[in-house]
């Protein structure tokens, strides 16, 4: 635990603004891939879990860490793969053979 500095609130607020603006620009056409893309990105909680599973914090921490790594990695892998699978399906008229 590295202590909360106030500046992290700035990061959160600014990121929320960026998120709001970026996501508002996604057309309905791509809302389903958007959902799976954000699922994949949310797998970034992996970075917290990795430390837990790999540091020597005791058995309980390691076990919880491994479960957390598994859960997060599932999101990353399936999220990105599904998004890509969906996006590959979207074609313009002139791309069609």
């Amino acid at each position, binding site marked *: 635990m590295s202590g909360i500095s106030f500046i992290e609130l700035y990061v959160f607020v600014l990121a929320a603004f960026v998120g709001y603006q970026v996501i508002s620009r*996604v057309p309905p056409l791509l809302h389903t891939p958007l*959902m799976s893309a954000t699922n994949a990105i949310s797998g970034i909680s992996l970075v917290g879990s*990795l430390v837990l599973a790999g540091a020597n914090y005791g058995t309980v921490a390691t076990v*919880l860490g491994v479960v957390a790594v598994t859960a997060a990695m599932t999101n990353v892998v399936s999220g990105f793969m599904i998004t890509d699978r969906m996006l590959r399906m979207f074609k313009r008229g002139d791309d069609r053979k």
Partner: protein
Amino acid sequence: MIPGVVIQVAYLAAAVLFILGLRGLASPATARRGMLYAEIGMLVAIVGTLVQHEIVRYDWILVGLVLGSVIGAPIAIYMPMTAVPQRTAISHMCGALAATLVGIAEYWRLRGQVPHAEMAALAFEVMFGALTITGSFMAFGKLQELVKGAPITYRGQNAVNLTLFAVTLGLFGYLVVQPAAAHVFYAMVGLALLIGVFLVLPIGGADMPVVISLLNSYAGLASAATGFVLGNNVLIIAGALDGASGFILSILMSRAMNRSFRNILFGAFGSQATAAATLSATTDKTVRSISAADAAIQLAYARSVIVVPGYGMAVAQCQHQVAELAELIEKRGGSVKFAIHPVAGRMPGHMNVLLAEANIPYDRLYDMEDINGEFENTDVALVIGANDVVNPAARNEPSSPIYGMPILNVDRAKSIIVLKRSMNPGFAGIENALFYNPKCSMLFGNAKDSLVQLITEIKAA
């Protein structure tokens, strides 16, 4: 010092790449490149983390990573597109699980020696995380039909839920003041898990998409809180992006459904009864049923057709037949367009994905605003398993629960053919006057079977 800088640079790069990735989704042309950025961002963040000093052994990490990939990849490869809502629910569960476990481990490791501000973030993280775990799991169960989809209600339900909330919030407040009270911490986690279940029980299966999106934003908030606890900015940023996405989608959905959050979360949708009543009151109106042969003739000679897909297309999984039919009509010289209502189906963008899967180019899918003016000059509007999104009551019956919701103006087309199995209502549980319109013919039966018949007949014509 050096690994510290490496990891900071890696995380900053990851955050930027995630943002660029989501920006790419602004258009199908840039979307895949965007996702590549996001994937690189993830890789950079993971590699950056692995060089951190605190990590001393990699064996367990490897176990987790391999397990996760082994679970994730088959889901991604074999899952039918119609199961996207369920998968999304499960994915929120996984995300929330990871956040919650990290929070619990952090608390356990520090044996409650947590400063007050950090404790607030930590308690927030596990509370939102825990309720998202069970809530998402319940949502998954309802969508996958493991649990009864209908709302489960009982007397005093709201009172029970409110009490649960109040107690949990009380524990939260106590913890911030007395971070060392471990039993309170674990009690709060347990209660939050219960809340997740109780929150989703009274909500109907069909309202799940909104609930899922809300849970999405909760999972994002939990993840951002983890970032605060660990002092990790990329977690904060990714959590905020995730939270914003869930929030925006749930707003869009409830707006397009013309309902408020409150109504969805606490309404327990009591409209089944009313719907039945209206239905019986109007059975004296006549419905024109049509045979596949007659419908095929209409379609074969139509110069312009607009296809209006709805949830029924997803149920029947007939998107490939729809594409085949469209191609057939076009070969005979007719034009075919697809009209996509923003909440057709059961999740945002549902129809788009299914039609894309059937190889229909996305520039032939028209948003509601862009196509609504064209129905007047259209020979046949072919409604495939859509119901609420074409219900004229939204336009002209102020007493209807969907009054005010924008709809596709199918009733303005020169003729209408509706593919559905029965006269049963759709999601909103209300009757549809469109089906009694003299211009409208009903082709009853499972949409897939009906389409196969239509295709055979047109080929023969």
